[in-house]
């Protein structure tokens, strides 16, 4: 009886912990709304179904709602959720021992979601955007300083330029905001950091920023920065090269951003020896990994020293799951912005690409994720074998069922941590339109790859004051 209760409890625990499919359900429900730019129904859905996030995903819950409100243009509501998300991030600084132990036994989904670094940067960026929508330049700069503290901390931890510790887009936009506040020196420092971050990061330095930076450094007697960053003189003329000019800054969110899926690896674990696992890629090719298994346990070592038979060399079937990038094809490639007083439209420049950022993040975290996963799977495999031994009965049929059931349920426990904010755009794009103080109307068109117009929007009554920068946001997730 006790064994049956133990077995049923195990099933209960496994079913409880294998609820990682909530992430998949969220994606399924929200993807369609966002593609159609229907952000408020998506917010409504999230608010009505908080259980799809759960207590461990409080940060993600706030981030998703905040981002959707931002796309909708409800900047106050957006900031209320995004600032909540930032508070949750800081509250999660202390790691719970219970959660960490549970994650070693179950999977990483039992830990609270702490966000991925590029998400956190974008989160601060959107908070700044929301303040800029209300012309609160100094509040937007608070976000720059807060993010800089995080960049400094990431840099201190990594000590190399290989991992994501800075963000070209964030520094570039900060440079524009510093310029709007009349702080030219800080604007140049941010511009310098931006070029440096682009050169070290996954997103290629856009030629527009390269040319703009070269001219701005020259204008502000910082030609040594051009030498340090090895910037070449531009071949094309860049509009708006001056300090503190009045301009309309158009920010476009284009295409559906990437998500993180699960790749299942399976193979054999030779106890105290090797893990050999295989995985079939989406293109049909087979990948194989050979990893050293954790060392022989002390009890087994003592047996070996006494010349007794050990369990080493026993082979077990294992399965584990690792997170992988999933990109989505999108029609929107760029935006054309037509402004009063200009005969030709401005075409946007890509300043961030989240397909590349997610790929970089998975690469940065691969070693740590793999080490945790291998340790977890090995612990679980040993535990499963011991459980099978303890549950053995005199009934052969029951023994078969217990053995098969234990293996199947242990496999079910293994889930990759695929949590991420999949509501991010594929790319963030910018067009800067220098204007004289006045009232303007701009027409924005989201363009497809063949130059076709996918959707349009008119923004009227944009009042630009002296030395003021007006930010306009538009998204096309098609």
């Amino acid at each position: 009886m006790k064994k049956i209760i133990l077995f049923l409890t195990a099933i209960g625990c496994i079913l409880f912990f294998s609820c990682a499919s909530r992430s998949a359900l969220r994606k399924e429900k929200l993807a369609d709304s966002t593609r159609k730019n229907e952000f408020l129904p998506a917010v409504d859905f999230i608010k009505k179904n908080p259980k799809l996030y759960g207590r461990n995903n409080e940060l993600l819950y706030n981030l998703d709602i905040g981002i959707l409100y931002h796309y909708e243009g409800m900047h106050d509501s957006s900031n209320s959720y995004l600032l909540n998300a930032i508070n949750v991030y800081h509250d999660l600084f202390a790691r719970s021992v219970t959660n960490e132990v549970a994650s070693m036994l179950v999977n990483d989904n039992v830990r609270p979601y702490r966000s991925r670094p590029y998400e956190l940067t974008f989160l601060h960026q959107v908070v700044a955007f929301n303040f800029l929508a209300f012309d609160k330049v100094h509040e937007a700069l608070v976000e720059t300083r807060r993010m800089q503290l995080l960049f400094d901390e990431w840099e201190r931890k990594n000590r190399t330029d290989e991992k994501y510790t800075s963000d070209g887009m964030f520094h570039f936009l900060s440079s524009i905001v510093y310029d709007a506040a009349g702080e030219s020196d800080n604007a140049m420092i941010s511009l310098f950091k931006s070029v440096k971050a682009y050169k070290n990061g996954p997103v290629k330095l856009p030629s527009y920023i390269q040319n703009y930076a070269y001219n701005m450094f020259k204008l502000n007697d910082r030609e040594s920065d051009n030498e340090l960053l090895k910037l070449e003189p531009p071949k094309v003329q860049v509009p708006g090269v001056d300090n503190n000019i009045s301009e309309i800054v158009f920010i476009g969110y284009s295409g559906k951003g990437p998500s993180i899926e699960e790749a299942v690896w399976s193979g054999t674990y030779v106890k105290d020896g090797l893990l050999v696992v295989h995985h079939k890629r989406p293109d049909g090719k087979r990948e194989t990994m050979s990893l050293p298994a954790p060392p022989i346990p002390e009890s087994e070592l003592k047996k070996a020293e006494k010349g007794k038979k050990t369990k080493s060399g026993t082979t077990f079937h294992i399965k584990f799951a690792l997170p992988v990038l999933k990109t989505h094809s999108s029609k929107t490639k760029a935006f054309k912005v037509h402004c009063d007083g200009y005969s030709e439209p401005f075409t946007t420049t890509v300043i961030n690409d989240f397909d590349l950022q997610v790929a970089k993040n998975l690469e940065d975290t691969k070693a740590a994720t793999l080490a945790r996963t291998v340790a977890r799977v090995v612990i679980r495999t040993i535990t499963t074998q011991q459980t099978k031994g303890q549950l053995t009965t005199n009934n052969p049929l029951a023994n078969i069922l217990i053995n098969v059931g234990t293996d199947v349920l242990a496999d079910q426990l293994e889930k990759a941590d695929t949590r991420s904010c999949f509501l991010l755009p594929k790319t963030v794009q910018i067009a800067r339109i220098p204007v004289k103080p006045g009232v303007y109307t701009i027409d924005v068109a989201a363009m497809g790859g063949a130059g076709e117009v996918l959707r349009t929007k008119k923004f009227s009554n944009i009042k630009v004051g002296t030395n003021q920068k007006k930010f306009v946001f538009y998204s096309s997730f098609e």
Partner: protein
Amino acid sequence: MFLSKKRIICWLLPLLVVGCTTKVSRVQSDSTMDLTGRWNDTDSRLVAEEMINDCLSQRWLYKWEEENKRPTVIVGNVVNKSHEHISVETFVKNMERALLNSGKVDFVATKSEREQLRDEKADMAENASVYTAKSMGEETGADLMLIGTINTIVDQEGNKAVVFYQTNLELVEIESNRKVWIGEKKIKKYVERAKTKF
């Protein structure tokens, strides 16, 4: 068995219920309570107290007192150059109240408040009786403007951080651009966050 299962449940149940309830208690508004290490009401109160004492004791007021006049002050921008979203209005309002209650200074409405008042006067011109409607162009011009900044310097490593806040407020004569008073309050905090919890 010394403790039966039922007894254990009877002991644990109230504990669980108590653990799940929200506990609220009233505390003195001037008590010092730090939860996160961020700017809080205590910092705001310390800045207000320092600024009020300093502002009322400095000699800039003598000039007006000698002439038996009260200067009129307008609150300008207090720019937040820190790394936190700080509500400057809390200590600026404290200061405004203390100066006004001292009877030595008058305040006029801020830019946004004035716009609201002008809208109201425009509305009165159309809708209120001629005896009660307030006229335009009768506003009191300010003599001085209160402006300021909040700056922070943060030095952090891992779970430890030293945060230095410097708040500066200045009174500037609008006519001559002369600064007549500069107040300063520095606050330094050492914040250590727990790395782990149960």
